[in-house]
């Protein structure tokens, strides 16, 4: 039997050429279908609706409390990306904007949540294929011995392709004091990936503002490749109360009016104390309040309860916290 049935892969050079050609052809076809003449007009609102931009942004407004500067930045970015896409249809090919971002802010200010939304937003706009978020910390990227780091980092980058790679507390990658640390290698590979896979990978670095600044000083290459620096402000006490309300509502609970006042006071005090971690602290406080509520209901004098008793958090549940006793640890 002669080897004449073969058409495509054979050797690497040929197959790569074949596939590039078809991909390019598909791209060209798409362009032709969407191409516009110079005197055409486009309804930007229509484009936005099609891409689901407003849905994602409205959901962001609705579900995330506060964070005004962050939402502003995302609206700007979304607007730019929509306009870029339309411009492309007119035949003006702007370079794809760099989408790598840096989120700075204190713990519990919503960095991870927003990263998740960015994935959806960019998928809707066609800048990412899948928009899933892969979260990585130092452990996932840096190896334990020579030659361990590169495959590890590449594996994570591979998983994140077509989506968002969220590097939490990115400054831990860089340990200036330790020469034998492999963090630098991970950064180098990450930089390379940010450059090579610019079209299907968005890297989001997150961490505290001051330490991120030091990190960028030590890695100027990183600084220049991250185009969007977004600062997450701390939540005010009022915003925290709104967040807490949303959390209890999700669990089918509610606050009594006294509990509501207690919650407000609790959060005002808790904010001033050490180890305050924004929305995360609120969640923990609510978990503890639920425990106290359960105990109150089960161990009190009258153990007969109705639906209202089961779903209402009372002031004592919150006031029993050590925060009100002036203690350091929130409990």
């Amino acid at each position, binding site marked *: 039997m002669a*080897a004449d049935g073969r058409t495509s*892969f054979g050797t690497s050079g040929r197959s790569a050429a074949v596939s590039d050609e078809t991909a390019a052809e598909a791209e060209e076809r798409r362009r032709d279908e969407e191409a516009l003449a110079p005197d055409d007009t486009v309804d930007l609102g229509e484009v936005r609706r099609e891409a689901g931009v407003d849905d994602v942004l409205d959901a962001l407004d609705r579900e995330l409390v506060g964070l005004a500067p962050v939402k502003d930045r995302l609206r700007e970015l979304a607007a730019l990306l929509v306009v870029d896409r339309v411009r492309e249809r007119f035949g003006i090919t702007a370079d794809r904007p760099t989408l790598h971002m840096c989120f700075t802010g204190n713990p519990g200010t919503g960095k991870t949540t927003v990263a998740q939304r960015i994935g959806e937003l960019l998928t809707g706009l066609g800048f990412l294929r899948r928009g899933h978020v892969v979260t990585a910390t130092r452990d996932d990227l840096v190896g334990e011995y020579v030659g361990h780091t590169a*495959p590890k980092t590449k594996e994570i980058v591979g*998983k994140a392709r077509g989506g968002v790679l969220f590097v939490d507390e990115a400054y831990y990658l860089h340990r200036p004091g330790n020469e034998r640390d492999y963090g630098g290698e991970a950064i180098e590979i990450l930089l390379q990936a940010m450059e090579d896979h610019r079209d299907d990978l968005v890297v989001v670095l997150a961490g505290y503002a001051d330490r991120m600044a030091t990190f960028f000083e030590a890695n100027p290459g990183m600084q220049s490749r991250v185009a969007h620096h977004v600062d997450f402000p701390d939540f005010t006490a009022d915003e925290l109360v709104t967040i807490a309300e949303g959390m209890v509502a999700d669990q089918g609970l509610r606050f009594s009016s006294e509990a509501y006042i207690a919650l407000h006071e609790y959060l005002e005090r808790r904010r001033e104390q050490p180890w305050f971690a924004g929305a995360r602290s609120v969640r923990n406080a609510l978990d503890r309040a639920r425990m106290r509520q359960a105990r109150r209901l089960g161990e009190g004098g009258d153990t007969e309860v109705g639906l209202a008793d089961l779903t209402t958090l009372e002031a004592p549940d919150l006031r029993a916290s050590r925060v009100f006793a002036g203690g350091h640890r929130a409990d």
Partner: protein
Amino acid sequence: MRITQGTFSFLPDLTDDEIRLQIDYALAHEWPLSIEFTDDPHPRNTYWEMWGLPMFDLQDPAALLDEVRACREEHPEHYVRVIAYDASLGRQTVALSFLVNRPSEEPGFRLERQEGKDRQIAYTTHAYATDRPSGQRYGRADSGRGARSNGHGR
């Protein structure tokens, strides 16, 4: 002689776009994928060399396709296959396996007869390629270039 092995083996060789779609299909079923290569074409040669480790938790075919291309570039005159493993209980086996690269020339096999006791004949196949040492079996591209990478530690 064109070796047919694995899924799609009687179709024309897959293009990269078709390979991408197959990888997509495997990922949609949550089958982790891996790449293997060999230059021993014998059908009973089941354990091929691994190109890197299996890639778990992928969401997108891009990363795997990059590895396929890297493996082809490193071993242009080898057979390269993509394997998808179904780890679900009750199956736990290779769910999909197909070739993504083959040598430019495949000399094929000869039939060997071994004469045994009482004039009995035992038949076996012998790949012409395996007459030469591993790494120098196909084409000229592979000969005399020393040790080659296996995708680990890259």
